[in-house]
């Protein structure tokens, strides 16, 4: 009985282990010269596990190449161990219709402990004016033996 319990605990330790806890320390200017154009945002977080691991610090926007909107979202990890997430940015025109874009493809992002990272995207067309950032915890992976 005790042996079986010990084996289960050991198996749990193996499953949960292997994640090195290395937090990221930062130093920056106390009075940054750049003034970000902050965007008030609306957040819908359905995944409580993801909410516990990652939070949105701020959303900036600007214009590049003359008339293309650029957005940049600063995300920060709440965890002391590495966290991987996936994200995608969707764009919408002035009528609220979704605009096809390569940034709609999901991408992966890995945070070290307590690390801040930015994700950014440029509007695919000048008439793409609104965006939605989608976040998702990394999927459980299934190995392929080849």
């Amino acid at each position, binding site marked *: *009985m005790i042996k*079986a*319990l010990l*084996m*289960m605990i050991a*198996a749990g330790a193996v*499953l949960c282990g292997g994640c090195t806890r290395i937090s990221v320390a930062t130093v920056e200017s106390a009075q940054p010269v750049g003034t970000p154009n902050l965007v008030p945002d609306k957040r819908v977080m359905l995944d409580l596990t993801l909410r516990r691991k990652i939070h949105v610090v701020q959303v900036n926007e600007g214009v*590049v*190449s*003359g008339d*293309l909107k*650029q957005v940049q979202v600063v995300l920060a990890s709440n965890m002391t161990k590495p966290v991987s997430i*996936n994200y*995608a940015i969707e764009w919408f025109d002035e009528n609220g219709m979704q605009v*096809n*874009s*390569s*940034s*709609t*493809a*999901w*991408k*992966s992002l890995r945070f070290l402990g307590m690390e801040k990272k930015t994700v*950014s*995207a*440029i509007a*695919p*067309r*000048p008439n793409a004016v609104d965006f939605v950032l989608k976040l*998702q915890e*990394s*999927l*459980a*992976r*299934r*190995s*392929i*033996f*080849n």
Partner: protein
Amino acid sequence: MMKIISFGAGLLTLAFLTGCATPGARYINPQGNETIVSLNQINIQDWNNAADRLVSSLLESGALERAPKQPAVLAISRIINNTQQHVDTDSLTKKIRVALNRTGKVVTTTTMGLGGRAEDPLAKSASEYAAFMNDEPASATTHLPDYSLSGKLLEDRVSVGKDRQTTYSFQLSLTEVGSGLAVWEDETQITKAGRRSTVGW
């Protein structure tokens, strides 16, 4: 009691190993996160990611704003594949062309290509025929490119024991045809590490 615990542990292990796997063939989103991640080749998400990063870099650089005319005419030059795989470099360039075309800042010529070969021979013939009928030189109906896009794909593999790491580098240059100067250059790298390929990421 012991049997129950063993049975429970077995079930738990099975649940961990199988997850939500569906062994049968099914459709997945090519832009989603259920695609296969393999260590020995460039996957669809790698092409998407590299093209997206390079297009963003080009637009952020402002090089296209300084084009002599809008939209600027782009020609696709040589993209050298120095990886161990046989890949069609259009997997990268077509995505970049489409994204730039959508911005309205660039159009790509399909009647002028590397070594005089047109991507669209019919369009080239029709253009030459129209010029002939109008008593004009063949070049009169051809738009000379303002820019040409060239680049290189590189691969770096390293392994320690069973751990493998592969880095793919995507290098591109945008050359102003008039001056012969590269007005934008960038490189993006995608590194994958692990012991075996996986489904989902």
